[in-house]
Each structure stands twice: as structure tokens, then as C-alpha cells.
């Protein structure tokens, strides 16, 4: 008992040293990043971790280099699950690495590997310090882990983007349009496209007031349909998703909601229509303790019955000090019998994380 208490307190104390801001090697180079430890345990029979594992979830470094006044090179490097390549453990990844030219506030040009800028969460999906709950919403952002065959959009894309900010009267807005290789089965999508059709992502966010913002996103791609030899069979599956999100923070109370809808339309098979939604309410107490409740719903195929999944998330996020967060939540899942992932399971999982961002 004492040993466990000591270990917990020691670990927490070790993490209590996030810097006030990015490490700034010079006016031209900044280093940011985050680190997180995660814990999950099933409280019933279900789909998840029955053992209560401690996951060295992420160590991440974000580099920003400004070699010239209008030029920025940015990279986000991730080591996931205690990476040890000699043992083939964990994962090392470039989340993004791009060059950005800042022509105007409303016109920046970007080239490289980027997050798919769709909705609220994809662009911060690994960054535990940047959102309240232990995991980002699954139904709208990781729907392949909630009963879908395929995500609503891929995590990343390699290609070009234009983006920017503008102000029209008192309304603030920002936009991004990306042209990328899209997703494919047989080649590295960040190196080589397996068809001529490029993926297009677009997002517009509008903030009529400081407390209220609305966004709309769209993703479109064509997937190559392979023949029995694993070669391009000539057919294409149309992959299309669109969504809307909103946040309203009138004070200590906050609301956030997201809706995504879309389809997969193979050339020689029936179309799959699907949709998902999440809604969250939270309340900041003394700018430190934030209890939250979130509801998630996914219908992975509107033409099929009883394949839906839903989840309630109840939790609390504690901003311990600058950049250090401790959070814990209960995830109660209910699913239909035809749901591919959960197959009718009903269960609750406890999740917790310690995350430091700097």
C-alpha cells in the first residue's frame, strides 16, 4: 500500500515540471510537446483491457523553425507505447512535417504531410493535454473502433493545402483546403498514390462571438478497388463524408457537439450510408476542475438494423498546474447485436491519464 502510494506520488511529482512555454532555442526555433501515461480497465465483460494496463502512451515533440520571416517548417514527431524498435514494440511516427509560406493572414500555402483537418478532434487526436476526456470521441473520430468498416476520413494526408484566418466585421473565421493522395491499401499513401484521383478536405470555422463557434467539414476521395491479384481492378469506391461542429462557452459552462455523415459507394456493390454524433457538456470549477459528460452515437450502416453503438462518458479533468492534467472517466458502452466491434456487448470501462504539455 505504502509502496503504491509512494510510486504514484513520485510519478506525479516527476511530471510536475512542464515549462511555462515552448523551449525557445532562438527566436527562430521552438520546441513544444507532450507526454502521457494512460490506464484502462474493464469493469465488466466487454471489449477492452481486463488487466488494468499502464500504457506509456505517447512522447511527442513539436518543432517549429522559422528560417525566414514568412516561412515556417513544422514537424510533430511521436513515440508511442514506449517505443523499443529492437523488440518491435510501439510506434514511431511523423504526425506532420510540412513547409508553410505565409503570404497573407488569409492565405498560407502548405506542402508536406499533414493532419486531415476535419471537425474538432482529428488534428489533436493524440495530444492528451489538449482535450478534456481521456480519449477523443470514438463515434465521430475513430469510428472503425466503434463498429465501422472504415473511418470517416484518414488521420493524415500528404500533399498541398491553403489555409488562413480572416475577420469580417466582428466575425472571425478560419479555413483550410487540402489536396492529398488519400488512402490506399498497397502503397505508402505519403509517398505514392495508387490512382489519379486526389482526396480533398475542406473545413470552415466561424466565430460570430468569442463564446460561440461553428464549423463545417467535408472529405472526398476515391479508393482503388483491387482485383484478386491485388492489382488495380479499374473500379473506384467513392468515399465521402461531411460534418458540422459547434462549441459554446458562455462562462464556466461549456457545450460541444459534432455530427458527421457520409457514404462509401463501391462501383459494383451497394452503397453504405453512415452517420455519427457526439455531444458534450462540461463545467470549469475554479479554472482547474472540469467535470464532463459526453454522449456518442454511431450508425455504421443505415441500411442494416441493430448495428448501432452508443457510449456515455462521465469524467473529470484536473488542471494540476501549467500544462499538467490528470483525468479519469467511465465509458459505458451499449451496442446492437449486429455491431461489428461490440456485437451487442454492454459494458463499462475505466480510463485515466496523466498528461503534460509544454
Amino acid at each position, binding site marked *: *500500500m505504502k509502496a*503504491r*502510494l*509512494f*510510486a*504514484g*506520488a*513520485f510519478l*506525479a*511529482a516527476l*511530471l*510536475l515540471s512542464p515549462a*511555462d*512555454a*515552448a523551449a*525557445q532555442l532562438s*527566436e527562430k526555433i*521552438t520546441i*513544444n510537446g*507532450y507526454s502521457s501515461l494512460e*490506464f484502462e*480497465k474493464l469493469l465488466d465483460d466487454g471489449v477492452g483491457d481486463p488487466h488494468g494496463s499502464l500504457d506509456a502512451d505517447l512522447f511527442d515533440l*513539436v518543432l*517549429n523553425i522559422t528560417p525566414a*520571416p514568412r516561412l515556417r517548417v*513544422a514537424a*510533430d514527431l511521436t513515440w508511442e507505447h514506449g517505443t523499443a524498435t529492437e523488440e518491435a514494440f510501439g510506434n514511431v511516427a511523423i504526425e*506532420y512535417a*510540412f513547409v508553410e509560406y*505565409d503570404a497573407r*493572414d488569409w492565405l498560407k500555402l502548405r506542402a508536406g504531410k*499533414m*493532419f486531415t*483537418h476535419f471537425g474538432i478532434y482529428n*488534428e*489533436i487526436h493524440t*495530444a492528451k*493535454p*489538449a482535450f478534456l476526456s481521456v480519449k477523443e470521441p470514438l463515434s465521430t473520430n475513430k469510428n472503425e473502433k466503434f463498429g465501422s468498416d472504415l473511418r470517416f476520413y484518414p488521420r493524415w494526408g500528404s500533399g498541398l493545402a491553403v489555409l488562413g*484566418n480572416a*475577420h469580417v466585421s*466582428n466575425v*472571425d473565421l478560419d479555413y483550410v483546403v487540402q489536396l492529398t493522395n488519400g488512402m490506399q491499401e498497397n502503397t505508402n499513401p505519403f509517398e505514392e498514390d495508387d490512382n489519379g484521383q486526389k482526396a480533398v478536405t475542406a473545413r470552415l470555422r466561424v466565430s460570430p462571438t*468569442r463564446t460561440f463557434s461553428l464549423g463545417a467539414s467535408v472529405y472526398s476521395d476515391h479508393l482503388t478497388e483491387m482485383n484478386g491479384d491485388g492489382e488495380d481492378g479499374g473500379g473506384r469506391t467513392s468515399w465521402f463524408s461531411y460534418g458540422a461542429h459547434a462549441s459554446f*462557452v458562455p462562462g464556466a459552462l461549456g457545450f460541444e457537439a459534432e455530427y458527421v455523415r457520409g457514404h462509401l459507394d463501391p462501383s459494383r456493390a451497394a452503397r453504405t450510408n453512415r452517420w455519427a454524433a457526439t455531444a458534450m457538456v462540461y463545467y*470549469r470549477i*475554479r*479554472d*482547474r476542475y472540469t467535470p464532463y459528460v459526453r454522449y456518442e452515437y454511431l450508425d455504421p450502416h443505415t441500411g442494416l438494423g441493430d448495428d448501432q453503438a452508443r457510449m456515455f462518458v462521465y469524467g473529470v479533468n*484536473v*488542471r*494540476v*498546474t*501549467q*500544462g499538467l492534467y*490528470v483525468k*479519469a472517466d467511465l465509458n459505458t458502452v451499449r451496442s446492437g447485436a449486429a455491431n461489428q466491434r461490440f456485437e451487442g456487448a454492454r459494458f463499462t470501462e475505466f480510463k*485515466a491519464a*496523466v498528461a503534460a*504539455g509544454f
Partner: protein
Amino acid sequence: MRKVVASLALGAMAAAVPTALASSDIAGYRVIVNRANPAEHLAAQDVARLFLKTTRRWDSGAPAQPVDQTLTSPVRQQFTREVLGQTPGQLQEYWLRQTFSGREVPPPVRPSDAAVVEFVRGTEGAIGYVSADLALPTGVKAVTVVK
């Protein structure tokens, strides 16, 4: 298991107690710019846009260079609440999201009023904030923030 999680949270919270996150009780702040900047008045919303980096340029097209004080400094806490309209926690979350999404990084931080003045005096497009009772040297001027 529950004990380990509980002790993690307890240990972290206990160690954090000396770091006050409460709102400030200082008399006020002044927004300052480089003497070469023609601005005399700025709308609070425009100041907020400069510090949140959704606007990167002055009306003249010259690059704007906001400079912050440390997160726990009373002057920053008051400026954050009154001009940016956010709590320190909300602002930190904003910058974490901006940074990790690849969009922007926070302004550079200087540890004191004197260091902010020094930065603004030496940087033509700079904008900062300092305690209201600070005597300003040549090369720096205060601008009126209109709400």
C-alpha cells in the same frame, strides 16, 4: 489499481498547491508598442487577435510580434481575462490545440515588465503589456485599448 490511480492524482494535486492559479489582484496593465508604431488606440478585439495570432500583421502590413509574460504573472492573468476574454486555463488549452494541430505556436514569453519593455523597444512590430504603474522609457509607448 484504484489506490495507484488515486495516489497519482493526490500526489500531483498536493505538489501543485504552491502554484497559485487564482485571479490577480494587481491594479492594472498597460498595452505597449514600439515607438515607431503609428497606433494610438487599438480595439480590444484587435489586441486579442494579435495575441491569439489570428492576425499576424499590423494594418500597414508589417509583421506583428506579440510578447507575453509568464503564465502565472498577475499582469498576464488580468490581461488574459480582460482582453482575451479567457481564463488562464482556457488560454493554455487554446495554445495546446493551436500548437499540436500545427497551426501556430504561442508568442515568446518574457519573465518581467522590464524584459517585455526591452523586447518591445528593440522590435519594431512588437506589442506587449506591462503593469500600469511602470514608468516607460523612450522607444516604447502605451496605446489605449478601446473595449
